[in-house]
C-alpha cells in the first residue's frame, strides 16, 4: 500500500493530519499497537519539522507485510550540519514554532528513537530528505 501527501510550510493547523490518517490505517491493518505508535510519532515529528522549517514538502508512505517506509522530502533551507541538528537541544526554530510547543531540538532524535533506520540527506538552500524504516514484526530487520 502506497500513498503520498503534500504538506505546506507554516500550516500548523494541519500539522499532524498525515500522521493521524496513517494511525487509522495501521489500526485497520491490525498492526501491533507499540509498533504503530512508534511509526506515527516519528511521522508526526517529521510532519511538524516540514511545517516548522520548510516551504513545502511531500510525504510518501509505503506499507508492506514486513515494514513501513516513510520518505519525507521538503523544499526549504536544508540542514547545513546534520550531525549538529541531531544533537538533542539544538534547534533553529522560530518563536512561532516554540509557541506551538515544539522547537526544543528533540524532533530528529525522537524520530531516530522511534524508527529502526533513519537516513537524512540535505542540500543547504534546497531542502532535506528523511527516510525512515520501521519493521512491523520486531527483529524482522
Amino acid at each position, binding site marked *: 500500500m502506497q500513498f503520498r501527501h503534500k504538506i505546506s510550510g507554516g500550516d500548523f493547523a494541519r500539522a499532524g493530519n498525515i500522521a493521524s490518517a496513517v494511525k487509522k490505517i495501521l489500526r485497520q491493518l491490525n498492526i501491533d499497537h507499540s509498533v504503530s*505508535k512508534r511509526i506515527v510519532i516519528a511521522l508526526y515529528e517529521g510532519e511538524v519539522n516540514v511545517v516548522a522549517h520548510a516551504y513545502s514538502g511531500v510525504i510518501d508512505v509505503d506499507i508492506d507485510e514486513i515494514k513501513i517506509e516513510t520518505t519525507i522530502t521538503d523544499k526549504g533551507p536544508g540542514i547545513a550540519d546534520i550531525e549538529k541538528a541531531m544533537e538533542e537541544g539544538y534547534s533553529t526554530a522560530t518563536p512561532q514554532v516554540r509557541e506551538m510547543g515544539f522547537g526544543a531540538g*528533540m524532533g530528529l532524535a525522537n524520530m531516530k528513537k522511534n524508527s529502526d533506520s533513519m537516513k537524512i540527506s540535505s542540500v543547504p538552500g534546497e531542502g532535506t530528505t528523511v527516510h525512515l524504516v520501521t519493521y512491523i514484526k520486531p527483529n524482522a530487520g
Partner: protein
Amino acid sequence: MVEKCFNSINQEITIIKMTISEIAKIIDGRVICCEDRLSTSVEYAFSSDLMSDVLTVEKENLLLITGLANLQTIRTSEMSDISCIIFGRDKKIGEEMVLLARENNMILVESPHSVFHISGELYKAGIKSIY
C-alpha cells in the same frame, strides 16, 4: 480506586487509579469534551507545555496537564494515546480543539488552578509521575 496486586516475587503492590470525574472534582475542573467518558480511570500523569517532550513518553492511558492550549496539544495527545488533557489557568480551548478531541474520544478539562497546583493536588491524591 485502590487495587492490591502481587508481583512475580509475591510482593504486594498498591495501584491507585482515579476516574476523570474524581480528578475533575479535586482540581475544580470543568469538563469541556467527552463527558460520557468520565468513568475512564488513569494511574499516571505528565505535566508539560513542551509537546516534543510529551512525544517521548511511552506510557499509555495517560493524563496530560498543560498550559499550552492549541491544536497541536490535541494532535500530540492523539499520537501519544493520552486519554485526558487538563488545561491550567483557564486557558481558552478553541472549537477546533474540541472537534479534534471529540473525534479521538479525548476528555478535555479546564481548571482555574496553575499547572503546579493541579500537579501537586493530583500527586497528593495518589496519581503517579512517569519520571
